[in-house]
């Protein structure tokens, strides 16, 4: 095997400059005429966003992980590591707390403690090459399904595996397929829901970008089980790379005979087309998604009848999330027993979470169901940066809820999360530390759902709007103590009277933050105090006379000319002029740390 340089070039990697790395590597190889010496592979995301742009170097018996690279590092990497197998310690990842470095990717705690069934192949596959996928065992699962099983048996396997929908609600996939299979119709559809819209969630994008064939293979198997003849990948146009890769993958699969008439010489025919969504959050809701595919305004409509009975163009339609489809391939390949051995009693398999926010190791983590939050956040995520305290984690995006530190040992599965007032959602996990104001967080998420509401039900369209207004008033220190009860009442009413999942879960962030962080609400309302020092109206910036050395940096940078003071003398902030932009707080040299935030605000 030739040494190989694997460059992570998903959207996040590209944003951090991985394309320049790719160009530099190719350029260097061409100039030095090293084509025979090593290979370059441009793959999808490797999952470790914190360390982008990163590369994996395949050497005999080793997989070395270099992180945060720059184009000028390429020469070193090629000459020293690829050609001479020397490990360059400055490129290695080191744990933020212990400062210990790791050379092999599999030793890094972030990767070591994961179970990367779906994401694991990303570094081995160039997304635009079907041959790479086939080399990694791709489409054997499809062959197995078509050769060895009848459609009913496929559904049986999926049912036995205990796979539940990864889109959020967790409906048993096998059962859904069975309903769709049993619905009588001349044509049926399968749809891959790639309209991932939660702020901070991107695992579907990463899968489609990095390993599109695994999703397509799952869809073909599903269509075979259900008896569908047409498949649709509904992907938002904000994911241009995913759109490109999935388009390419469908084309290649068609050329290789995995799609089209008589797949793999069987009697089964199936084809996939790609529909791009315009990026409305609500179009991830299955009925709105159907409306959008049909060319109507993307607004949910009432069920029953469920799409499995009457969906796209009035035909039975099975809609599954990207991650669910990718799981199918693995289940057929390795069997339902293997799959159901992972996870808890009611939630099987692994789940990908996008671990973001105030966390050391930001990235996509794939873990078995039932793992505790603590393990994800501390063992894989490496804890909270800057010696801050963990405060809460928001799961399930804007429809989910905030889980406090007291529930850190909560096992992650569908039921436990629901009981805690949150939800699995598509798997966003936003970690918050002590500097996060929970009222502000609730307002942020609610504002998002408010803007993304389709506008059909008054409860969702206007209920959320009035809740945002109340939250806004609280963060400005104008809240009334009755507001908490009012928020709970409106929140409960919105939950009960809305038509679709968006409205029914929109108030979750507010209700859970009130449930777990009521004291913060009360502090905002009664004491006009923001304990996390976030809400502008409730804080003031002051300069600590004992710490200030009079370096004048703050005064020079103040946009409002609010800071006065002679050089080498203690400076003061004129509260009447201060616009609370926080620049002084940021620019005050760390050795002094003289600018402080205090709450309640000075009058």
């Amino acid at each position: 095997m030739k040494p190989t340089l694997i460059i992570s070039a998903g959207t996040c990697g590209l944003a951090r400059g991985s394309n320049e790395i790719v160009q530099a590597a190719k350029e260097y190889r061409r100039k030095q005429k090293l084509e025979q010496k090593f290979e370059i592979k441009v793959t999808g995301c490797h999952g470790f966003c914190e360390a982008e742009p990163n590369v994996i170097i395949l050497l005999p018996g080793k997989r070395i992980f270099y992180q945060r690279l720059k184009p000028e590092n390429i020469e070193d990497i090629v000459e020293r590591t690829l050609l001479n197998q020397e490990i360059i310690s400055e490129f290695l990842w080191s744990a933020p707390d212990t400062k210990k470095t790791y050379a092999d990717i599999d030793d890094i705690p972030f990767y070591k403690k994961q179970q990367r069934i779906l994401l694991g192949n990303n570094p081995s596959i160039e997304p635009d090459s079907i041959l790479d996928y086939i080399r990694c065992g791709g489409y054997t699962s499809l062959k197995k399904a078509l050769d060895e099983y009848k459609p009913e048996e496929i559904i049986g396997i999926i049912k036995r595996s205990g796979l539940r929908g990864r889109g959020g609600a967790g409906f048993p996939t096998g059962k859904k397929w069975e309903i769709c299979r049993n619905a009588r119709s001349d044509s049926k559809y399968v749809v891959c829901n790639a309209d991932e819209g939660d702020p901070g969630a991107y695992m579907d994008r990463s899968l489609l970008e990095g390993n599109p064939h695994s999703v397509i293979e799952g869809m073909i198997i599903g269509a075979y089980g259900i008896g569908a003849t047409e498949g649709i990948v509904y992907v938002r146009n904000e994911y241009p790379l995913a759109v490109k890769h999935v388009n390419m993958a469908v084309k290649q699969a068609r050329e290789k005979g995995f799609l089209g008439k008589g797949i793999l010489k069987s009697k089964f025919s199936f084809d996939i087309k790609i529909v791009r969504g315009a990026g409305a959050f609500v179009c991830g809701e299955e009925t709105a998604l159907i409306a959008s595919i049909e060319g109507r305004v993307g607004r949910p409509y009432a069920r029953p009848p469920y799409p499995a009975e009457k969906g796209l163009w009035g035909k039975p339609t099975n809609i599954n999330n990207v991650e669910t489809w990718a799981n199918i391939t693995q289940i057929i390949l390795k069997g339902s027993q293997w799959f159901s051995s992972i996870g808890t009693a009611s939630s099987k398999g692994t789940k990908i979470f996008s671990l973001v926010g105030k966390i050391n190791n930001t990235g996509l983590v794939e873990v078995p169901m039932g793992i505790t939050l603590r393990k994800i956040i501390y063992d894989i995520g490496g804890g909270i940066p800057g010696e801050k305290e963990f405060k809460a984690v928001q799961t399930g995006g804007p429809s989910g809820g905030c889980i406090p530190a007291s529930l850190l040992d909560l096992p992650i599965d569908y039921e436990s999360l629901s009981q805690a007032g949150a939800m699995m959602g598509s798997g966003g996990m936003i970690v918050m530390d002590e500097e996060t104001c929970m009222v502000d967080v609730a307002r942020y998420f609610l504002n998002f759902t408010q803007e993304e509401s389709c506008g059909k039900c008054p409860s969702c369209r206007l209920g959320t709007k009035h809740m945002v207004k109340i939250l806004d008033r609280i963060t400005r220190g104008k809240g009334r103590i009755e507001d908490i009860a009012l928020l709970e009442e409106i929140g409960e009413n919105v939950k009960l009277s809305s038509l679709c999942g968006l409205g029914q879960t929109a108030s979750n962030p507010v209700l859970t933050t009130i449930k777990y962080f009521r004291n913060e609400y009360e502090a905002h309302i009664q004491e006009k105090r923001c304990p996390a020092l976030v809400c502008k109206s409730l804080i003031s910036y002051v300069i600590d006379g004992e710490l200030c050395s009079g370096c004048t940096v703050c005064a020079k940078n103040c946009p409002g000319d609010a800071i006065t003071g002679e050089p080498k003398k203690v400076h003061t902030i004129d509260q009447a002029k201060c616009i609370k932009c926080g620049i002084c707080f940021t620019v005050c040299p760390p050795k002094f740390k003289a600018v402080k935030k205090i709450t309640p605000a000075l009058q």
Partner: protein
Amino acid sequence: MIKLNIDGKQVDARKGETVLETAQRHGIYIPTLCYHKDLSTYGGCRLCLVEVKGWLKPTASCTLPVQEGMEIITESPQLKRLRRFSLQLILSEHPHACLICDKTKDCAQYQECIQKAPVTFGCKFCAQNGNCELQKLVEYLEIKEIPFPFSYRNKEVERYDPFFDRDYNLCILCGRCVRVCQEVRRAGVLDFHHRGPKTLVGTAYDLPHLETGCQFCGACIDVCPTGALRDRFGKWFGIPDKKVKTTCMLCNLGCSVQVNIRNDTVVNTTPDNGDLCVRGRFGIAPLVNHRKRVTVPLMRRNGRMVQVGWKEALEFASSRLSAHKGKTGIIFSTQMTSEALDVLANLARHVQCTAFSTSVRIPGADQVFDFKGITKKAAFIIVNTDLISDFSPLLMRLRQRLNDPRFIVIDAIRSQFAQNADLWLRPIAGQEQEVIDDLTSKNSNGIAGIPKADMLRALELLAGKDPYLVYNTMSVTGVHSGKGMKVIPLNSSVNAATITRMGITATMSDVLDDSTLTCLYCIGAGPRPGRQYATVIAQDCFLPAFDCDLILPSATFVETGGTVVALDGKKKRVRKAVTPAGKSRSDEWIFSEISEMLGISNKNGLVRNVPQQVPATARFKGTDVHFPLQLIVRNNCYVYRGALLSQLLTGFRRLRNDQSAWINPATAKEYGLTDGAQVVITGKTITLHMAVYVTTRVPEKTLLIHTYSSMGELVSQPVKLEPVGAKREPGKER
């Protein structure tokens, strides 16, 4: 039959029904707002929430299909709370000051309101006051306060389109207008804009309705539960206190129409169990209430028209008719009741009038079309006729009855319907008959400028079908149906069938060209300019445009009773809805009075012989160097008796520029013409002075004009065009 339990009561439900429908059938009230019986279910307002035993959350009953053994609860404290919550939220965006005010009743009694206030901020200032569904629901749900701050949308009231106003500050987003426009009328003009709290109903790119293909059928207004959509004319007349069902006499479809009346004044007309077109919905009320109505008999004295009593007027009329016995011509409008026509025919016979004719030719009017005979196999070929702008209720009816049949349009003009039909064949103007003939054959190579592929597609659509030829008989000349085709004859003469049975064979030209006549009795038509008669008697609802010696004021069809025979050959009742304006009287009364003065008995039977087919008229082939343009003449269906709707009502003038000659932009450029430019159109037999309207609807080298009785008998022919005078700015007409 499905059995379920609603509020502890065992009820039967039909398969496919929703819980709401079942409850309504069994007299169980569930409040609704977005639900409408003629539209698809929406489930948006959340007022019809019910609890289902075993379900976690309440669910909307309007979208919930019945299932065997369901247990439904329609009233509970939780449901009441949630319904109140939804309505309160809706009202937080809708002006609600009066809705929740406990002094509303006193206020209405004592305080005069500024009804034309530009902004509606309370029910007192809303045209829908008393008819609004929100008012009823507020009362039912006992809402006394709105716990949310009021957020007014502050949108400008949209008044730039004809016929109706849109105040989206009052809109509650129930989506009924959107659904009726998309599902029932298939116009698709309306949809929702934006998302979240910014959601609003509107047209594509917020264009005016005139530019979005709106049919102005008014269906959106009729389903709107609030005052957001109101027709402009009767907006402030108040809530109707009387409703009369009658038949619209503006075309031969004879649609059932409900006349809404307040204080003996027509407020508006709404569809009665069916659909209406723009004429029936927006034309009737302003016509009846028009300020140009003649309301008293007028007689010429010393060169001036002066008001006289009926006795004097009728004596004058009868004395003239008997004085000119044998030398009198009568021309009349077809938009009269059968009863009036009977008396008139009798009168005509007794005064021995040599010429007696309808004011327009109505070939094919003797044919009737029976809806009952039509089967699901029917397919329709529409020739030179715009079903949407002229006969839309027929289209709705065919679509409903036959579950979406196929429509093929043959028309050189890009009509509104041509764009909506399954297939539009655009032949060279004047060669429609070739196309029809070709459609009856088995194969086609393309004909009359239509590509082969289109013709083959047409044959494919018609294969195994029962073809019907649909056309405006007054507009399509020289066309006869192909082999095996049935005909649906359309025209603006509601009583055409009666008239043809009367055996009238003369055309209007026969009357007007008769030089022996000394007296002309005109009911909804006029003499040729320059032709002198000893006496001219006019009888119409509106002041005639020609000189006459006597004007007898007719009542409109809303003010008279009688019957008409419509397209289906059936008698339809026309009911007197309001008292005739001023001293105007029904045509029947006027004819009877004259007959009585002349000593004619009304009991004599009528001559009813079958008329000859009116011969086919000019066809044109190729172009003539002297007359390089083709003039296409179409019948103007927007007419009541002697008057064009567009002459009387601004809305219709803006809706379609039907008094101008339509010309293609390329051709207009060639002649250096812009919108509104005056031209002289000269053909072998005609000279017309008109303005032009530049539109892509007509093909190049073509002019389209809409004719009506007062323009005389025009036929399609080659013409030439000369611009005259200074160009006028478009849209600057009075």
